[in-house]
């Protein structure tokens, strides 16, 4: 293997061949690429490689350090799981797009300069949208367009920030930037869009549920976590992130409660989980950062697992609307179990992966003395349990029987979910390998009696509340609906505004044009009257009149000169 080849490029370049390979061979090939990437990553030493010059800028395509290796590793693992999950499909577009998308995300993780980051940043946007469009229906097309514009928007904002930064400092190094001026603010916002900051978040809930079965799984892993990586790289310890993150953990919780589409519920949950990481980065102490990074690591796996299980349901049943599901445990028992493993992980039950990382983050926040933030996060933890821990498995697999009967998910999906579930439990039980990868020395023991007890109290009393609510019938029934969110601004308000503006503009323009045309016509009539074939200036003039002109001219000349 070439020494300096960035692992991401293996996937990106490898994607070119995908459409040309026949069935079985293609499957093997798809599986082999992430493995190759992993091998390449494994063989890399820390340092900067694959450097090149363009326009006098030094580009670094391969910067290997602890932070990039953590994210590179998890991205590669996920890419591999995704391939397995998608093996049943025969869609070269999706397969190639997923590869390019994963590769771009991995590529972005390893770059050492902002220009290369921009390149891969945009590449993730372009390649991922195909996973949405691949649903091949009008809704997905529209959602994809919105998604693409927002993602590209993030890219151009990043570009603007990078340019201002380069112009001001002469540096394009992708290192700690800090929120200091307009340039870094733009970069921050660009990251924030991909990270689904509050009010910039809605592309996720909008687009992810419209993607294909496999597409949503792939999408959930990379874009937002790439943003987390970028924030961790460039803005650790930026205080505003704490508040942003805190809000992020809270508000999706409420929307998730009333949401009917379970994949959209998961998107809200994703948003909420990102909040924990953002807070960790914002706190910026070694513990908090470790918490954020490790949380991102395990989160990718369990969120993928949850999306996979919902994807399996969608694949078999054709819908993931809570109001139409229920009782599927009969048909898809394995999927149900895997889903619950994922649910337990995300809810941070002890012995599941979420527990060992979320507690790390919370400890970091608490140790830094952010009391209110800490309380908010604990509150949000209860929220997580509500929408991801209970709502997802309960309404899909239990609740009242919808009468839907189907086959268990395809084998490849089960394998992928099984592997993911295994990882969730493995890391929950034995977090040391993960801790060892983290950029800072970890001196932390998650399994203390106090921790476990507190967490169990929180979770079980919350579950008790759920049980009470269900039994009393207070739990709001799931109803088919559309819930307004910030996307209302660009899906309703903005188009209406534009339509209005264009109507007004057109009216004004028409008015002006009509007036102009009337004036022009009048002028033309005048011109024709005087200059036209029978006009006064073109008519054949009688000799007498001509002579009159002669006399006139002579008179004028004489007068002018005599006076």
């Amino acid at each position, binding site marked *: 293997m070439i020494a300096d080849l960035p692992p991401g490029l293996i996937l990106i370049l490898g994607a070119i061949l995908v459409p040309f390979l026949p069935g079985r061979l293609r499957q093997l090939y798809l599986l082999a690429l992430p493995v190759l990437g992993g091998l390449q990553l494994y063989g890399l030493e820390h340092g900067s490689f694959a450097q090149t010059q363009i326009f006098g800028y030094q580009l670094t395509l391969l910067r290997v350090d602890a932070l990039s290796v953590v994210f590179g590793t998890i991205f590669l693992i996920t890419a591999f799981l995704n391939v397995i999950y998608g093996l049943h499909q025969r869609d070269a577009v999706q397969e190639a797009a997923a590869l390019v998308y994963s590769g771009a995300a991995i590529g972005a993780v390893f770059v050492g300069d902002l220009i290369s980051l921009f390149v891969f940043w945009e590449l993730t946007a372009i390649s991922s949208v195909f996973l949405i469009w691949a649903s091949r229906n009008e809704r997905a097309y529209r959602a994809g367009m919105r998604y693409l514009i927002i993602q590209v928007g993030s890219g151009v904002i990043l570009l603007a920030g990078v340019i201002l930064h380069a112009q001001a400092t002469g540096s394009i190094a992708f290192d700690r930037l800090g929120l200091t001026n307009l340039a870094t603010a733009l970069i921050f916002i660009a990251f924030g869009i991909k990270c689904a900051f509050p009010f910039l978040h809605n592309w996720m809930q909008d687009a992810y549920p419209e993607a294909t079965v496999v597409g949503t799984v792939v999408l959930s892993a990379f874009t937002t976590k790439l943003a987390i990586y970028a924030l961790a790289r460039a803005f650790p310890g930026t205080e505003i992130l704490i508040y942003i993150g805190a809000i992020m953990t809270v508000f999706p919780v409420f929307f998730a409660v009333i949401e009917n589409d379970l994949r959209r519920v998961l998107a809200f949950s994703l948003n909420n989980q990102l909040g924990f990481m953002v807070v960790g980065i914002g706190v910026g102490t070694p513990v908090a950062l470790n918490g954020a990074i490790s949380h991102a690591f395990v989160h990718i796996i369990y969120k993928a697992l949850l999306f996979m299980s919902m994807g399996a349901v969608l694949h078999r049943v054709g819908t993931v609307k809570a109001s139409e599901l229920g009782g599927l445990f009969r048909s898809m028992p394995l999927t149900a179990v895997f889903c619950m493993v994922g649910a337990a992980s995300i809810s941070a039950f002890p012995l599941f992966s979420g527990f060992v990382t979320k507690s790390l983050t919370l400890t970091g926040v608490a140790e830094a003395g952010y009391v209110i933030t800490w309380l908010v996060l604990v509150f949000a933890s209860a929220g997580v349990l509500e929408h991801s821990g209970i709502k997802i498995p309960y309404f899909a697999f239990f609740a009242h029987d919808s009468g839907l009967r189907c086959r268990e998910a395809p084998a490849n999906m089960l394998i992928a979910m099984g592997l993911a579930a295994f990882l969730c439990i493995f890391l929950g039980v034995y977090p040391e390998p993960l801790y060892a990868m983290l950029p800072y020395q970890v001196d932390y023991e998650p399994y203390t009696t106090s921790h476990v007890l507190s967490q169990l109290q929180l979770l079980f009393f919350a579950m008790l509340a759920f049980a009470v609510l269900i039994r009393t019938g207070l739990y709001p029934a799931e109803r088919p609906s559309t819930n307004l969110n910030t996307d209302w601004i660009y899906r309703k308000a903005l188009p209406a505004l534009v339509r209005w503006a264009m109507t007004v503009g057109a009216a004004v323009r028409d008015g002006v044009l009509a007036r102009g045309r009337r004036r022009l016509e009048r002028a033309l009539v005048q011109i024709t009257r005087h200059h036209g074939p029978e006009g006064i*200036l*073109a008519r054949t*003039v009688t000799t007498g009149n001509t002579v009159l002109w*002669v006399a006139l*001219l*002579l008179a004028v000349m004489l007068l002018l*000169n005599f006076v």
Partner: protein
Amino acid sequence: MIAAHLPALQIVLPLAAAPLCLLLRRGTLAWALALAASWAALVCAALLLRQVLISGPISYELGSWAAPWGIEYRVDAVNGFVLLIVAAVGAVILPYARTSVAHELPEEQHATFYTAFLLCLTGLLGVTITGDAFNLFVFLEISSLSSYVLIALGRDRRALTAAFQYLVMGTIGATFIVIGVGLLYMATGTLNMMDLAERLPPLAGNRTVLVAFAFLTVGTGLKLALFPLHFWLPNAYAYAPSVVTGFLAATATKVSVYVLLRFFFTVFGVGYSFEVLSVGKLLIPLAAIAILVCSTVAIFQNDVKRMLAYSSIAQIGYMIMGIGFATTTGLTAGILHLFNHAMMKGGLFLALGCVFLRVGSVRLEALHGLGKRMPLTMFSFVLGGLSLVGVPLTVGFISKWYLVQAALERDDWILAVVVLVGSLLALVYVWRVVEAAYFKPAPEGAAKVEEAPLSMLIPTWVLIGASIYFGIDTSLTVGVARQAAAQLIGGAS
């Protein structure tokens, strides 16, 4: 020996050939003679100009009477150039004339035609070459009278009225000129232009001189169709035989412009004309109006010949404007345009003559689809039209370049814009023809039309070719025009 008498030969050759033509009676023979005479005149003119450019102005005493008393022929860069233009156009048009005249005029009038043509040529050459004010009037009358005949030969009944009006107007113009010349003689006692130029400055305040100036200006203005004295021109051009239109458009007005130049700059002197009397203030607005109004009128014409006639008035406006500036650049522009317009307008009218020969009409509708059927003719028209518009690589561009430059030198923005707007108006009327010829289908059941004969095409293309060539290689025209302008500005040379 011959070289010494070139100025005389210039006039004598066509003058002598004219009556011979009438005697020959047979059209073909008359044509051949006229052709020979015109070519000889061209040779004379070319040699004269060459001589002038090499060794300076030539003075020639007719009949060996010394200058103040006898008639002096005097050739300098200005009239040498005009001589060349006139002679060249005459020489190019005559080969063309044979077919065209044979087609448009009855056999028995051919000899008359060539006679009149030669007389007209003689007159124009004479006006140009003479250095005597009264002699100038005489030649002017020769050319005018013969051109009335030429126009009246037109087939259209309206040609007669047109010729009549032209006659009346021309006569008034001639009368004015003769009055002006007479007054000058009264004041100075001489008719020789050089002497006049010497004697006039002390008389700057003299009212007689002033009145003479006014009469001369208006008289010449009539002859050169200065707006608003142009009303005779459209009809005259429109109804005259094709050859005549081409010839007159290319030469007659140009010679009149030359006369104006001569009086303003040589006889009265630039100081008197433009500073004391500030004639420029009168001429420039008239020129500007001519450019705008007549170009606009041209747009509305459906008879292409009339369209070009109005265009001519506008183009004369350009020359007058250049003269009115009374600066070296302005004069260069005026004189250049004199030549350039002769080439392009001559070529355009000849192209129309070809159309008339084949189609029998030059109305716009008759031109539909001609681009395919008479490709060479129509393409020459397009090129000539582009030149009229002033597209680069054509002579029209060169003239306009200098004219706008002259306007800018005076910081006169409005006039610069007027000139350019004139170009754009020209674009409109030219493009009406182009669209008709190239993009409108030929009318259903139209007679099959052949390309014009070579005898007509070649002269057309010579003029059009010249209007392209001299738009690219301007060394000759610009060189001569600048020299001429410098001479005129520098006063009596």
